């Protein structure tokens, strides 16, 4: 229960940060990506604020050894820069540039009730499920990947 409340609170904070930062306006995102046009550096300030706080915060949290409401920290174990990582990031970048939405701001923007945002999020879910489905097909013949 505590873990669920913590997630609700942190999700709320995350959404609030995205809104305050202007990240829920696709024009601001595309303005940042448009280096040959009227460049809008706002996203750079958001990344600077986010990474600074997280960098310092993580360094205070990890030495505690374990989280408050869970048995252990759940961190990614992969370390290799491989083809799925780079091709995936590249494909994501194309979609991000086309629409000006990444997953967080898209979910937050559902609150506007716009059908167009619902359309984007549903397509995103279909894209996610298709890769997950392909992975299950492949893992039937190959050794399982680490979670």
């Amino acid at each position, binding site marked *: 229960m505590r873990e669920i409340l913590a*997630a609700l609170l942190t999700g709320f904070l995350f959404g609030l940060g995205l809104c305050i930062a202007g990240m829920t306006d696709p024009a601001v995102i595309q303005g940042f990506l448009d280096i040959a046009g009227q460049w809008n550096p706002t996203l750079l300030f958001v990344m600077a604020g986010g990474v600074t706080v997280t960098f310092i915060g993580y360094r205070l949290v990890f030495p505690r050894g374990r989280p408050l409401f869970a048995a252990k920290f759940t961190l990614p174990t992969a370390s290799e820069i491989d083809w799925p990582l780079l091709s995936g990031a590249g494909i994501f970048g194309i979609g991000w540039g086309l629409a000006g939405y990444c997953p967080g701001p898209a979910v937050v923007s559902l609150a506007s009730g716009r059908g167009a945002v619902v359309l984007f999020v549903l397509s995103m879910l279909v894209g996610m499920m298709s890769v997950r489905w392909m992975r299950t097909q492949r893992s039937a013949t190959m050794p399982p990947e680490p979670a």
Partner: protein
Amino acid sequence: MHPYVLGLIGGAVIGMSAVLLMTFSGRIAGISGIIGNLLPPKPADDRAWRAAFLLGLILAPLCLATFTGNNRIGAPTVGPAVLIGAGLLVGIGTTLGGGCTSGHGVCGVSRLSLRSIAATVTFVAMGMVTVFLVRHVV
């Protein structure tokens, strides 16, 4: 307030959220992963906190609008066909690449993960190439 200042403040709030989620639950605040593991096939067992996080995300602008009269959500800049195509690409890409702007861009970069730094450089570069092609070439 100037948009850059709001960006810095909003970014800091996002960072606080990421640090608190790690402090409480030991989890990376990566939105694509939080969503993806709710989906079939084989959704994760720990669905409750994931759903709660997403609910929090959606409640934020509603709360903001109640107190300030402005939810700060902008209108889509492209039509439905592009939104569908872009949504598919974002879903496929973030699942294949194991993260998005939050998980790789904020949390991973803060952990100095080489994978996340490589992913972030890649998606920003491809985003810039895409916008350049769409706005200045086609």
